């Protein structure tokens, strides 16, 4: 089946405006700031609202899947006679994936912008803040709605820059702010500016791999456009197919960096040095999902390729394994973290791993639709509950003026709305059944691993679910339950009483908490099934997909759907109960008391240290990559540059000088010597002439 660019006119206009509005808003921020701070603040929020409005206007298209995809391109750059590619275009691509993703991004962004009004109140650098926030939203929507890889890279790098700028937002790195905006504890305590740089450089390592992948794909397929790739992949000569395997795996390097998967995951926990709004928006709800989105974007292309070239399956196995291992590792690290935001950050990494797992296993099976839907569904539900968790955590940090869990405790009475919002969203994260959206999406992921016939991945994912339940309860109880910490008593002594956050802050996160319930109820009412159908309808008519299982033979799945669902529900309820109950005993009932428990058993103690030191992965990357690079450069400067090449130049120069100064001595100016020289020279010349001419 051929896809043609349909003249879409007015229908794609919202897709253009969705990312243009925030960009314009970002550019106007400095100008508004000259008028009045109020104009600047509300102006920024207005533009993010317009973006949300525009993306919502795309939602009706989800109910008319037969008309999708719609895309529209403008010519951007002529490449002349370059053999494979004559121009680079600029456009928008509207399909179910981009509509869903754009709505997640824009709506959550708008809520977080509103929350920012309260959270960032009184900060001196708000112009910079609003600029980067709006620029971020614009880039994120550009990325989501982009039609080709180059445009995608603009958004991709753009959000990276905003992430960098906002992590290091509190640029002062002051020791007084240690409780507020540093991250980690010695020996792994980092100031914000360090974390921003770390995030940018680490993700850039992934981007290099991404760029390599793109370059290889362009060289062999001659197109950068997602839709043209989709169309062309089945016609690719078979001898070129093998190239797609390394290209796709290299392409996955980008998501590894951006979505903080192993081995590039350590930047995300440290990114918590930024303001909490930034952590919520960029490092939980949206930017880190860009990697998952990219995998989802190229998924149909690679899937079609895998039908013609089965080795392509290794791409999906790589994704699935990296995903599930990351989910497990990050989950365990969350258990031992002492900072509320860092717990949430590890949890984000872990959940991103789940999404990767879902998309990965989807590609290995004929019935990819379950896994694919699971991945996208989890993107949605995670974006909602994790944004709410972060915003609520921000309210807590604001109240107790510290990022450490041991500075909190016993504040549920003072902050009831925050407490309940956090409980609801944490339950969603844990996957508490029926009315929490996280339950449905996570179960779908577990189910898809079973359907793909991957019992090891299933087990690992289930264990991770237990760990998730454990750290969620731990975080909740350390934050809200038990006795008030010494720190809070000190604050109260100084006259700072803990109180509920202002309305402008609690409304956004309670709305998000409500949304997670709504999606939970919708999930009960078959939202997952509807999503599955939407994707199925859409994907099945993409070129090349007619060869897939959906339209060909009846599914030859390893087990029946019903059985998979049963096993999944059983397993997920069991692990939830185990994880949550253990945490409940330890952290709420305090029998056994966590501190005593760890101190009394040496193995537990060393396990705890191992987890607390982040599996030593962070220390390892500094020891092996960062410090050696710097010391090598210092060494090379000393011994190669100055001691070698430059020294050599001076040796040459000195030799010339020495020779000339010695030679000069023969020019004494004494007549006798000169005449002697003339005579000797004359004789020598004569001899040579004699030898040459006669001999």
């Amino acid at each position, binding site marked *: 089946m051929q896809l043609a660019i349909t003249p879409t006119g007015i229908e794609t206009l919202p897709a253009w405006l969705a990312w243009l509005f925030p960009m314009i808003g970002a550019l106007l921020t400095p100008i508004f700031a000259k008028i009045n701070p109020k104009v600047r603040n509300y102006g920024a929020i207005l533009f993010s609202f317009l973006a949300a409005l525009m993306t919502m206007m795309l939602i009706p298209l989800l109910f008319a899947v037969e008309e999708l995809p719609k895309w529209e391109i403008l010519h*951007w*750059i*002529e*490449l*002349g*006679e*370059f*053999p*494979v590619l004559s121009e680079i275009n600029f456009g928008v691509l509207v399909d179910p994936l981009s509509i869903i993703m754009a709505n997640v991004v824009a709506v959550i962004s708008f809520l977080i912008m509103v929350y920012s009004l309260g959270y960032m109140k009184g900060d*001196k*650098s708000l112009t910079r803040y609003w600029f980067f926030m709006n620029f971020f939203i614009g880039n994120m929507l550009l990325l989501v709605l982009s039609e080709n890889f*180059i445009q995608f*890279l*603009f958004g991709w*790098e*753009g959000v990276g*820059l905003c992430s*960098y700028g906002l992590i*290091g937002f509190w*640029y*002062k*790195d*002051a020791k007084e702010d240690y409780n507020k905006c540093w991250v980690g504890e010695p020996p792994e305590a980092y*100031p914000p*500016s*360090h974390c*921003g*740089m770390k995030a*940018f*450089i680490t993700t*850039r*390592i992934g981007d*290099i791999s991404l*760029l*390599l992948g793109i*370059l*290889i794909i*362009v*060289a*062999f397929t001659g197109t950068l456009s997602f839709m043209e790739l989709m169309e062309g992949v089945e016609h690719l000569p078979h001898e070129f197919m093998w*190239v797609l395997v390394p290209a796709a795996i290299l392409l996955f390097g980008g998501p590894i960096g951006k979505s903080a998967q192993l081995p590039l995951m350590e930047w995300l926990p440290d990114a918590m040095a930024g303001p909490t709004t930034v952590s919520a928006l960029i490092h939980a709800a949206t930017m880190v999902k860009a990697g998952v989105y990219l995998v989802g974007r190229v998924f149909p292309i690679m899937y079609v390729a895998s039908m013609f070239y089965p080795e392509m399956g290794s791409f999906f196995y790589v994704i699935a394994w990296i995903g599930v291992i990351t989910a497990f590792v990050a989950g365990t690290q969350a258990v031992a973290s002492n900072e509320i935001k860092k717990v949430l950050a590890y949890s984000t990494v872990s959940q991103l791993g789940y999404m990767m797992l879902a998309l990965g296993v989807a590609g290995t099976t004929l019935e990819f639709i379950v896994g694919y839907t699971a991945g996208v569904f989890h993107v949605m539900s995670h974006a909602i509950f994790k944004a709410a968790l972060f915003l609520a955590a921000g309210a807590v940090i604001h109240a107790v003026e510290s990022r450490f869990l041991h500075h909190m405790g016993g504040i549920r009475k003072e902050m009831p709305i925050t407490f309940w919002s956090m409980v609801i969203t944490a339950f969603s994260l844990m996957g508490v059944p029926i009315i929490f959206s996280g339950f449905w999406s996570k179960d779908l992921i577990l189910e898809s691993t079973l359907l793909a016939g991957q019992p090891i991945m299933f087990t690992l994912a289930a264990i991770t679910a237990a760990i998730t339940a454990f750290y969620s309860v731990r975080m909740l109880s350390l934050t809200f339950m038990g006795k008030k910490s010494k720190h809070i008593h000190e604050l109260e002594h100084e006259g700072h009483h803990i109180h509920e956050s202002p309305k402008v802050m609690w409304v956004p996160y309670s709305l998000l908490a409500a949304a997670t319930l709504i999606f939970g109820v919708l999930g009960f009412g078959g939202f997952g099934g509807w999503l599955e159908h939407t994707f199925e309808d859409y994907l099945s008519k993409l070129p090349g997909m007619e060869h897939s299982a959906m339209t060909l033979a009846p599914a030859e799945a390893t087990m029946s759907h019903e059985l998979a669902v049963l096993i999944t529900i059983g397993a997920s309820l069991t692990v939830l109960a185990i994880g949550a109950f253990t945490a409940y005993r330890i952290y709420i009932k305090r029998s056994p008391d966590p501190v005593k428990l760890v101190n009394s058993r040496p193995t537990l103690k060393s396990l705890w240290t191992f987890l607390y030191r982040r599996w030593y992965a962070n220390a390892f990357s500094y020891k092996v990559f960062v410090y050696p*690079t*710097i010391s*090598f*450069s*210092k060494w*090379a*400067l000393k011994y190669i*540059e100055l001691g070698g*090449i*430059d020294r050599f*130049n001076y040796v040459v*120069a000195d030799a010339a000088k020495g020779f000339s100064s010695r030679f000069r001595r023969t020019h004494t100016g004494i007549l006798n010597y000169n005449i002697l020289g003339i005579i000797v020279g004359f004789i020598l010349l004569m001899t040579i002439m004699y030898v040459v001419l006669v001999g």
Partner: protein
Amino acid sequence: MILEDNGFILMQSIVVPAAFSVVALALGKRLRAKTGWIAFIALLYSSILLGYSQWLLFSVPELEAIQASYTWLPDISLPFGSLSLGNFTLRADGLSAPIVLIIAILCTLISIYSIKYMEHEHALGQYFSLYLLYASGMIGTVLVTNLAAFFLFFELMLIPSWALIGVWGTGLREKIAFKYFMFTEAGALSLLAGIVATSFIAKTFDIFEISQGMTGVAIGVQVALVVVMLLGLFVKMAIFPLHTWLPDAHAEAPTPISALLSPAMIGIGGYAVIRIVYTGFPEVVAAQTPQFMLILSFLALITMTYGGYMALAQDDIKRLLAFSSISQMGYMLFGIASVSTIGVVGAVLLYVSHGLSKAVLFMVSGVLIHDFKTRSVRELGGLGPKMPYTAVATLIGFLGLMGFPYIIGFWAELYVFTGSMYTALQGFSHLIEPNAIRVLITALAIVASVLTASYGLWTVRRVFYGQPTERTRDAKEGSMIMLVPIMVLAALALILGIYPSLVATGTTRFISELLSKLVLVV
């Protein structure tokens, strides 16, 4: 279509700055720092003329070049035959027009910047006089297609810059200027040897006629000629290991001159490689010696990596930028050695992007030196909130070097790497086979770009983040007269980043023409 330059546009753009250098010298005593405005007016005039020619090339699709030919010296009779120096031809085409325009723009803006930066210096009449001659030399070098004249202009940019470093520089300025002179002069002489030998063999000095004159000449001889000339140009480009003059010269030159040496001048070496090697010696590029280009890529890889590592180890901000320039020249050479349209266009874009970004960065370093009297990064810190415009400009500069989208540097690196990767994987027509080593080199080059990000962001962090140091406690934003040129360049980098076609269209047309001829050679 070639447009005859009847209005003397190109000639004027060279002659006017040269003529005004006399005016500057005459009025220098009276006007002192204000002499800079004379330089500004002269160079602005050149920029407008060259901007107009670039605009023509962009907007008229069938226009190939704007060209003017003038009879030069009469033929010289020598005992063994007559030697013709040929016509003195100036040519603005897809290759030279963007480069010369960037040179003119940089010279124009930096002349304003100089007014403030140099205000307390002595002999400013002489300074601006030499400055104008230097600018004229650079513009001439790029526009002229006659190799004899090329050499003269090449020297014209060397001598004034030597004097500028030696008189107004810092530190061991005489020694450094001497080192600079000796290195680049040695390179220039090597180039001269190549030029003379070429002209004897090909019986012409005009770059566009060499390839015709070279038909039938053994490939070995051609390779030897190219190698001799490349040696000279590589010194100018500061390719490893011929680079050691550069960090010294760039660091000790007065900062406005550093901001010309690095972004504008050294890249001319790269420009000349494209012009001379691709136009004059297509056989060397194409047929029998694809290995030759492979060696160039390898040299480029070493240069970019080495420059990056060295930049990482620097504490002196100007030295850091100098090593970063070496690294960037590696990228430029990498594009040139890619033997693909996109790669070579990428090299031109890289010249443009490096020109803009590095000029911004050197000028920023000048602001810092001017305000805080130190070049040590360690002694700076916490400047972000106090100097927001400077901070933004620096970030744009470094992001441009890193190849960040929205800035022209992204396109430069994307083009360079796409071109190189394409040739590596698919070969070039029937001339170059796909080659695994090339793929590896390209991959390593892309990996090396992490170094750029590292030293760039690290510098930004050390200078603009954190707590103010003793020196920077009372920092204020730099003066407008220094900031405006910086802002203009940064804005230009952004505009070209969003719409690179302004530069790329004409260049792409020209280079694809050039490379399609390559296929016909063999």
